């Protein structure tokens, strides 16, 4: 499982690779967090009560974009970082995510990059038997 950031003239892309689509969604959330805060949250050992969010959409592409934009909303509006995200259920048009909400203080954990939105631009979701890949771009 891995992600890497892609160069783009005005914005930034992210390429995800994971053993299945559920894990690719999780990796995408971690990548978005790293992009915004310039630090990885993957190895963070934190305990807390999980919250569940359910998102429904028209197809897998819109489900992915909507999910990532909902994560962005949590960060930008509620100053909550969705830690230890787990995909509980995933279909072509709905996803259920558990996460530990971590309320951050801007002065202690400033945002490195402001992301306006996750977009459909050159979005690719490829689901294979042993590998799933997602490529997406964010507007910054």
């Amino acid at each position, binding site marked *: 499982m891995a992600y890497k950031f892609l160069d783009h003239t005005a914005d930034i892309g992210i390429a995800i690779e994971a053993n299945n689509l559920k894990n690719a969604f999780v990796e995408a959330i971690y990548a978005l967090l790293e992009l915004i805060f310039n630090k990885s949250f993957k190895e963070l050992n934190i305990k807390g009560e999980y919250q569940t969010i359910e998102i429904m959409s028209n197809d897998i592409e819109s489900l992915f974009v909507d999910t990532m934009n909902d994560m962005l909303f949590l960060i930008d*509006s509620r100053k909550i970082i969705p830690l230890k995200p787990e995909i509980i259920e995933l279909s072509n048009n709905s996803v259920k995510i558990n996460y530990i909400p971590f309320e951050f203080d801007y002065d202690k954990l400033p945002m490195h990059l402001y992301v306006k939105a996750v977009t*459909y631009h050159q979005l690719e979701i490829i689901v294979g038997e042993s590998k799933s890949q997602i490529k997406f771009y964010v507007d910054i």
Partner: protein
Amino acid sequence: MIIEKINDYKYRIPKSNFPFMRVDGIIYADENLLEAIKNDKTIEQITNTASLPGIIGYSLGMPDAHQGYGFAIGGVAAVDLKEGVVSPGGIGYDINCGVRLLATDLEFDDVKNKIEELVKQLFHEIPSGTGRGGDLKLSYAELDEVMKLGIDWAIQNKYALPVDKEFIEEYGRLPNANPDMVSNKAKERGRDQLGTLGSGNHFAEVQIVQEIFDEEVAKQFGLHKNQIVVLIHTGSRGLGHQVCTDYLREMDSAMKNYNIKVPDRELACVPIDSKEGKRYLQAMASAANFAFNNRQLITYNVRNVFKRLFKTDKVRIVYDVCHNIAKIEDHTFNGKKLKVLVHRKGATRAFPKGHPDLPEAYRNIGQPVIIPGSMGTYSYVLVGTEKAMEETFGSTCHGAGRTLSRHRAKKMMTADEAVKKLREKGIFIQATTRSGITEEIPEAYKNVSEVVEVVHQAGISTKVAKLKPIGVIKG
């Protein structure tokens, strides 16, 4: 793809290139800028925009055009009010991102010994940076008033002078705003961001009027050589971003109800007259009114700093222009008078003298067009022309446009080197983050002077004054 040269500053992409193109594409550029435009997906996006139902005339690209989402940034599309569609991608994620120019009664000699102090105080007074909120915490009822009333809210609350209204596009209030069409999510995202600069390419700059190209027009705009001016570049912050996200989601689903297919999902659109279209335009107007007030609160803080440091209360708005917006306007195409919805995404309105939408003070001169440069480079004041009405639905360029990614820009020089380079040019900078400096170095952008020269030579707006920065405030 076939691209035909019309003249040294104008190129055509014939609609015969693709079956989905309903109209030709037209790009305003010189050879050099056209080559830069060809480097990314800008041309593809201009041709995709030409597929929109109801598009009239051309899908236009300005000389600062670069790849955006759905529409190119630097794109203009006018659509028929009855047959046409509205596309949030044609406005962008930063609704009513725009620029405001403030003119003072000071000259360079008055401030030269206090530039550092001036920039520090402005940086302190103007909240800036990624995700940072402002000092003003609005209730949801107050936020609704901000969105509904536009600049009248700021006047009522003493953040604006009554005269300010005259010098803002649309008099600082889009009348069809309806905050009920703005989601709670968008309101929550924007509630503490009023009066904040944000980050990225947004900035406030203290500048000197370095050169005057058109004495008569400059005089009417109240500009003269060596004058100190302030340029503010920001938009509707998280509130506008969320409005765009919300309605793209809604239109992506709704398009099938209207049998609309687009080549790119970021171009999702619905008929202007549909319930979704009407709702979006009311939400967009609400976000636009928020943005007018955002620039107004920054103006309020700028005025306070100038009063404190220089004992002057003569800081007036030259003009405030939107460069991410859609508006219903009257235009003539092929000799026929039409009411159209003009999408301007990274493009500036450029109405000529005599236009009824201009304030009385500028009706006999034309609309001021304000073009911000990249950090530490020149900005320009131009004036709208009749040719813009004839060729571009009264539109022109909006800025420099990036040519290098942030990653590549950061590799070019360190923040210390960038600050040193700016200091050598007599520019003092204050920024929230070091990356905010390196990512926005002038080398990462097209040459704004070349962009402005194209629109001047093409006649879709003409040069009035060149502004040189002496102080930069960045997120």
